[in-house]
């Protein structure tokens, strides 16, 4: 009896979490005429039309490509800068360590709206409006605190003796960093990469203000400004939502352990 109730609750929980996405998936398979009918819940004559139409009618592929470029570059840049900084903070002698960590942490609490107006003016003045570069630099900065924080915790767990032994053997700090420390911290780096990738794939405010054409539009902006002449094309919208969510669902199912590790290292152990 106890067990039955427990499993019922688990099923309820799963439905609550996955239900909205499931409903979006069902909607995406419905032809336009069925969208305005409830019941039935399931499509009578399932179709892929909505999926075909988002790639045919709209520059959807270009938008996905933009997002992929931005997210991948941001991830790479934040990992390079973040791991260097985290290694320095965790293993090297640096003055004002506490102050630096406090500064990094306080930046992560910045509300994006507070910096969007000056950044917009700066980016416009530099002629970087509507470029992917502007997004990559901004995202890298806003994900650096997370990267530094998580990676510092991971580097700290590697014993100091390893660092010292390698130094005695004649390695420079930089050689110790990329030959020994990076491979050892691989799980942490991987966890950070996933978190930064998801953040940049999903960011909306900066993407909305810094971009104006399809040349640099990313997925969230594309979805929010989904073209609809008189009404929202719910079928197309559902198909688009499913397509852009698939990569994230794959990440979650394949790497849930790493994601959880990263999230908890980023907030609790500190």
């Amino acid at each position, binding site marked *: 009896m106890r067990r039955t109730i427990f499993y019922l609750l688990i099923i309820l929980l799963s439905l609550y979490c996955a239900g*909205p996405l499931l409903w979006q998936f069902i909607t995406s398979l419905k032809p336009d005429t069925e969208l305005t009918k409830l019941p039935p819940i399931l499509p009578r004559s399932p179709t892929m039309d909505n999926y075909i139409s988002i790639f045919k009618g709209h520059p959807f592929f270009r938008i996905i490509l933009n997002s992929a470029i931005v997210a991948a570059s941001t991830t790479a840049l934040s990992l390079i800068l973040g791991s*260097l900084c985290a290694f320095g903070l965790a293993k090297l002698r640096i003055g004002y360590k506490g102050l630096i960590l406090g500064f990094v942490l306080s930046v992560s609490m910045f509300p994006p709206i507070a910096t969007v107006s*000056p950044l917009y003016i700066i980016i416009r003045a530099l002629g970087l409006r509507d470029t992917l570069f502007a997004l990559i630099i901004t995202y890298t900065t806003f994900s650096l605190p997370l990267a530094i924080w998580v990676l510092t915790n991971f580097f700290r767990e590697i014993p100091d003796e390893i660092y010292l032994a390698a130094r005695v053997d004649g390695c420079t700090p930089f050689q110790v960093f990329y030959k020994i420390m990076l491979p050892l911290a691989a799980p942490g780096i991987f966890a950070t990469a996933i978190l930064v990738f998801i953040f940049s794939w999903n960011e909306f*405010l900066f993407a909305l203000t810094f971009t104006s054409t399809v040349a640099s539009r990313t997925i969230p902006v594309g979805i*929010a400004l989904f073209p609809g002449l008189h009404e929202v094309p719910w079928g197309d919208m559902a198909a688009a939502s499913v397509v852009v969510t698939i990569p994230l*669902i794959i990440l979650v199912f394949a790497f849930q352990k790493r994601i959880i590790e990263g999230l908890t290292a980023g907030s609790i152990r500190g």
Partner: protein
Amino acid sequence: MRDEERGRWFVMPSLVLLSIVTIYPLIYVLYLSLQRRLLIFDVSRFIGIDNYLFLLKDDRFFNAFKNTLYFTVMSVSLELLLGLAIALLINRSFRMKGLVRAIVLIPWAIPTVVSAKMWEWIYNTDFGILNYLLGVKINWLGSPFWAINAAVFMDVWKTTPFVVILLTAGLQVIPKDLYQAARVDGAGRWDIFTRIVLPLLKPVILVVLIFRTLDAFRVFDAIYVLTGGGPANTTETLSIYAYKVLFQTLQFGYGSTLAVVVFLCTGGISIFYIRMLSRGVKL
């Protein structure tokens, strides 16, 4: 000495980038907030604290402030309660635990904009599944009472997974012997929860509250996409109001003033929580 010099080179690139893209704009936004600046007309004039004085008489600002507070308090407290319940539920071994944990993470991973559009469709008056399942015909996003609560509900759905993950991590640190010892001493489930679990979980709960309160207070995309701030500004939060003043009416001076206020509020919130956290650790 030499090592310290080398160490600087590891940290420097990150610190330079952080300063250029966050500290410099922060100083710039303070300066902008003291100006009357209209981007389209190339107007830019120093007016001192006039924008701040105007803010004190701006009903729309107070309305946005009230909405932001309501949204923050409601969504954070609901997320915490629901998150705690779910964390306690799945904090044991059972079949397919990994699968369930991955499913719980789904709302967290979906882009906020996408989930806002998903919920807009669910809330649809005529064809939405919510009205169908409840057997009612409520205009969720069109009525001033329901719209803000619909936004709260969506946010709770979206961010509870984050709370669950952190609380689960906190629960796993509690030694199993503690439960057993308490049970031997005749403590019931409720006693164990209130006298052992909750006190030991307190630091984690505070961390969760910091992150979630700050996120909820600066909420933008979720509500902007779901309702656009409507109906009749009943869901307009501070970030949305600031965004509209900045990029729809292009008043960069007053918009920056609003942005500064959001910044000061979040700063105040973090200082408040960090104080509580450090006091808790000492006790």
